[in-house]
């Protein structure tokens, strides 16, 4: 039950617990005006023994990083008698406080950390219930029922770790020895232990390592990559005076826990906050202005804003002249993208567009940003690109109070050199054909995978799938199709802490770790280099010995990286020079038998070769176990000269005296990374686009096709998204995230369920009354692909043409608390992805709603 304060009752459960007569009797003790302070006071005896055994001085406080979501905020874990008793914010980790270094260091002390102390969101506080969830998978399970489906009991048989590793390795060995290593598909979460999985796939010989990002924000990545060459610029709310957010809910879909503080501080310091969203999100609740927009039309709004700014010459002339290309073509394109044009598309009044454009362009500095609201539509990439260019128009890059270029130097992933056997299958095309996506991302395209598995029309037929810390079935559009696709594999291995809907289809279900049981290095998404350590704060009572020695989580289970290492050893995977990769410590260059110790050495190597230049043991000793580069946030990095030392080792792709020549850290065929461009005759960082500048118009895109074979627009052309409402399915259906839950993975967490037990379907009162729906009614939500039941919540917080709900509920498994609660919308769509970036299209659904 949520803690709703009912004004008409005044207290919870009043009627249930007490009759009026009883209360009246108690009123005999009512006092008069005399002070009540101290009345009836007596001593309440404390327990000195209890305090000694369990108080704050007892046990240990272990610094680490959260992983309840991908935000990775710093935590301090109070561990007493081997139990995590409390989790608190880590004051030394900037991610918990500010993404701007001057703000973080203002009042910082080594003893206490940041001046006001860090913060931790509800999910971070609830990590204890994730760790001690009695529904967790504790031992490896093997399927005995060959039939797979939502209603099929897998007939789990408990097996030993040795047997699990042996049998899975045997299946993989058969693939590899048959020259079919590429027929292994691998899906992973995108923040944890990704490098070791990538290494495994490389050394094994599969090009098919993919991860979560393509379900999340690769469209944003593509939008910015096209416009300004960086994957993930970061908002500086704190120093901004005008913050314009398109479909982003930073104070509720928190991710980095500094966001609620930095955004509200920005407002306190004078920023105006304008939120464009079909739903009055919890962030829009903090805004001065909520711009109610139709889903998937944000790009049109951005173009109209640009139209007004250019028409009235309010743009940043200096930035446009020096740091951009293609402004003339863009100006020409937006000439007819008038506010009146946009009003018809977006439902935002033209007068509001005129006014917001003037405010945005004349209030400096302005921060314009966009995330997954507009992004998860079929026109999301170009829409996001228009927004990224709107930011450029008002000079909004890498100045205080704008969008900052990240500087994310942290641990370094040492690339492995696969042996000849692996090389042969690595040359096979990726199964998902990510190369067909002109702005595709290394995380791959899950949707393409499912489509090809179902149709059997990929470049080959994959045989084995390994899914680590992902719930593919619930996470993508088209849940039923994802299930059907996964069933095509001969063997599916799932590593998870819970029996997720995906785990339900597994042939082998391997117990995973909660983040409190394992290591990771997290280079944080603040604006200067910061790296936090995740470390096991609880472990098995005794070290495990089979099939290799390792420490073990609370059930004696391997951490995910140990499982991968164990498989690598069983398979005897070696690098090109014959090194027994999964046994030889990468830092010590000594054989290490213990899996945990080997991974510690692996991490030490990443730290020593990366920016921190220290060992794992040294990182553990830092305050809060976080390395914070003291040089701090830098601005106008794009104008910086490439240091001579760096330039000396660089690969110059052409003539260094010619403007526009690109500069890489090493040759392109050796995975060289772009580090700069020759601009004005000087080698500077610039922007990592083809031209080295922000591109309003990209000639390099001319002649390219998207994954559906359509030419790519070199301008951020607005096209309506593919799926539009019609007479039969007249409403847009969207979804969002809130602070209470992470994706589809936290709904069995008892504390989080208590603050957010379910996800009602939010509907506008005008729409509801037209449909005869009242608050709390059970309704059907039906699309052309399927229907599902929901409970209506009637509020003006949503656009009348739109219905929506928090994502993540409606499980049929996961755990006893999550199953059967709330609504999942995955079956209302088929597998759907964007043809430019491969982004999963979660928010492009049209429905009708009627009383159940």
């Amino acid at each position, binding site marked *: 039950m949520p803690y709703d304060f009912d004004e008409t009752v005044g207290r919870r459960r009043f009627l249930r617990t007490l009759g009026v007569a009883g209360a009246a009797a*108690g009123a005999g003790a*009512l006092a008069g005006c005399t002070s009540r302070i*101290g009345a*009836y006071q007596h001593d309440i005896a404390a327990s000195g023994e209890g305090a000694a055994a369990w*108080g704050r001085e007892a046990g240990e406080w272990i610094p680490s990083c959260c992983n309840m979501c991908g935000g990775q905020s710093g935590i301090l874990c109070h561990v007493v008698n081997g139990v995590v008793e409390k989790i608190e914010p880590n004051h030394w980790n900037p991610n918990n406080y500010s993404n701007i270094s001057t703000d973080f260091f203002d009042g910082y002390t080594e003893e206490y950390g940041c001046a006001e102390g860090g913060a931790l969101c509800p999910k971070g*506080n609830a990590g204890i219930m994730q760790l001690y969830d009695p529904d967790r998978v504790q031992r490896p399970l093997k399927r005995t029922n060959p039939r797979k489906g939502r209603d099929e009991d897998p007939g789990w048989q408990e097996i030993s770790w040795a047997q699990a590793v042996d049998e899975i390795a045997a299946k993989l060995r058969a693939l590899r020895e048959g020259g079919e290593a590429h027929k292994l598909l691998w899906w992973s979460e995108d923040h944890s232990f990704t490098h070791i999985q990538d290494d495994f796939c490389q050394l094994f010989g599969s090009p098919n390592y993919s991860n979560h990002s393509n379900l999340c924000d690769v469209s944003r990545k593509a939008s910015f990559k096209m416009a300004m060459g960086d994957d993930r610029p970061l908002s500086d709310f704190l120093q901004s005076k005008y913050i314009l957010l398109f479909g982003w809910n930073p104070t509720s879909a928190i991710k980095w826990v500094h966001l609620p503080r930095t955004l509200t501080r920005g*407002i306190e310091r004078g920023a105006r906050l304008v939120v464009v969203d079909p739903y009055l999100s919890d962030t829009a609740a903090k805004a001065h202005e*909520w711009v109610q927009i139709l889903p998937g039309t944000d790009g049109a709004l951005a173009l109209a804003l640009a139209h007004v700014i250019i028409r009235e010459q309010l743009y940043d002339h200096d930035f446009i002249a020096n740091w951009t290309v293609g402004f003339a073509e863009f100006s020409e394109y937006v000439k007819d993208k008038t506010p009146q044009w946009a009003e018809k598309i977006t439902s935002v009044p033209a007068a509001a567009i005129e006014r917001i454009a003037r405010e945005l362009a004349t209030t400096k500095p302005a921060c314009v940003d966009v995330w997954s609201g507009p992004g998860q539509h079929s026109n999301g990439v170009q829409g996001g690109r228009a927004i990224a260019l709107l930011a450029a128009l008002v000079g909004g890059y890498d100045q205080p109070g704008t969008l900052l270029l990240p500087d994310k130097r942290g641990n370094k992933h040492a690339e492995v050199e696969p042996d000849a056997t692996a090389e042969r299958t690595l040359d096979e095309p990726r199964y998902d054909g990510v190369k067909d996506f002109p702005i595709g991302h290394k995380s791959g395209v899950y949707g393409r995978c499912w489509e090809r598995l179902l149709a059997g029309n990929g470049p080959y037929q994959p045989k084995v799938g390994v899914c680590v810390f992902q719930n593919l079935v619930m996470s993508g559009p088209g849940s039923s199709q994802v299930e059907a696709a996964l069933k095509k594999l001969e063997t599916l291995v799932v590593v998870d802490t819970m029996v997720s809907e995906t785990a339900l289809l597994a042939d082998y279900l391997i117990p995973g770790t909660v983040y409190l049981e394992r290591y990771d290095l997290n280079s944080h998404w603040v604006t200067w280099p910061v790296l936090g350590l995740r470390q096991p704060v609880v472990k098995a009572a005794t070290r495990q010995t089979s099939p290799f020695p390792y420490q073990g989580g609370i059930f004696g289970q391997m951490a995910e990286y140990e499982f991968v290492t164990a498989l690598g050893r069983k398979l005897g995977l070696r690098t090109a020079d014959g090194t027994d990769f999964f046994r030889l410590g990468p830092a010590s260059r000594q054989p290490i038998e213990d899996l945990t110790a080997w991974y510690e050495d692996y991490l030490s190597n990443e730290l020593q070769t990366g920016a921190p230049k220290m060992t794992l043991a040294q990182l553990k000793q830092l305050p809060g176990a976080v390395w914070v580069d003291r040089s701090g946030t830098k601005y106008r990095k794009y104008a910086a000269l490439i240091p001579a030392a760096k330039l000396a080792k660089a690969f110059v792709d052409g003539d260094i005296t010619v403007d526009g020549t690109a500069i890489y850290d090493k040759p392109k065929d050796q995975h060289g990374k772009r580090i700069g461009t020759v601009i004005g005759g000087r080698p500077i960082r610039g922007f990592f686009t083809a031209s080295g500048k922000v591109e309003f118009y990209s000639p390099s895109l001319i002649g390219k096709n998207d994954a559906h074979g359509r030419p790519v627009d070199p301008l951020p052309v607005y096209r309506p998204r593919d799926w539009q409402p019609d007479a039969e399915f007249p409403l847009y259906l969207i979804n969002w995230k809130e602070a209470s839950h992470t994706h589809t993975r936290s709904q069995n967490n008892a504390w989080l369920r208590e603050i957010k037990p379910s996800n009602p379907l939010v509907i506008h009162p005008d729409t509801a009354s037209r449909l005869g729906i009242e608050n709390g009614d059970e309704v059907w939500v039906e699309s052309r692909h399927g229907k599902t039941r929901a409970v209506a919540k009637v509020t003006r917080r949503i656009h009348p043409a739109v219905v929506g709900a928090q994502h993540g509920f409606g499980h049929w498994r996961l755990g006893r608390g999550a199953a059967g609660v709330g609504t999942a919308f995955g079956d209302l769509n088929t597998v759907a992805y964007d043809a430019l970036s491969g982004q999963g299209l979660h928010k492009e659904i049209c429905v009708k709603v009627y009383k159940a």
Partner: protein
Amino acid sequence: MNEDPGVRETLERDPTLTPCERREMFGVLGRWLGAALAAATVSRAAEPAPAAQGRQRKHHYGMVIDTRRCVGCRACVVACKAENKTPPGVAYTVVLDGALEPRIGDKPLFMTKPCFHCENPACTVVCPVGATFKRAEDGLVVVDYDRCIGCRYCITACPYGARYFDYGDDYPARSDKTPYDAVPSPEYGQYRKREPGRSPIGNVRKCTFCLHLQDEQGAYNRAAGCWPACAKTCTGKAIHFGDFMDPESEVSRLLRERPAIRLKEEMGNEPNVYYLL
């Protein structure tokens, strides 16, 4: 607000009541009991108990909560659960997110709402066994679980809904006997292990401003992490906690500098939690 206007008028016209008594009537009784008790003459003033005598007011703890900074995330609710080990259905702080009528789009106003540790608490005086009281030395309103008989009069009396009854429910991590079941609640420094049939099951529970984190002098130490759990975790840094007796404390300064409101001021309970709007 909550009072039935008819009752209010009746009480206001009653010449036998002092203004102060009238105010208390509103505060304690609310709409349900007002009429029933209007005729009762209520006069027994509470005497300070022997244990309270000689205790000087050393602290005046309270909170100033900045609604502009509260983002409604409910980290405070969960952090409080984690700190005090409260069972399902018991939350010492909750977050209101009601829509304010004149605002467009049913725009919510987020407010976290712990116990207000009122200067003039309505809850303590209704206790038939003297189990709950306002401490003389620091003003905290507490419950002695060993005395509480679970009658729940105090729940009715509190106009703010800040008190909860412990029905003995448990989260799966306890009911299924995971290692977490060993963890006791630090409340009142008692470190009670949760056991069926034992207090605080069957008692009324409420926010203590995490008084178990006070030192022997009754002081909190923020640098050492000895600070109310909700304030420590707050993502917007909206919850300011401190001592109103110290004019230099953050809470005193905020009240000097910024206009603040208290909820249901007209009830006369004089809450020690203020809201900045």
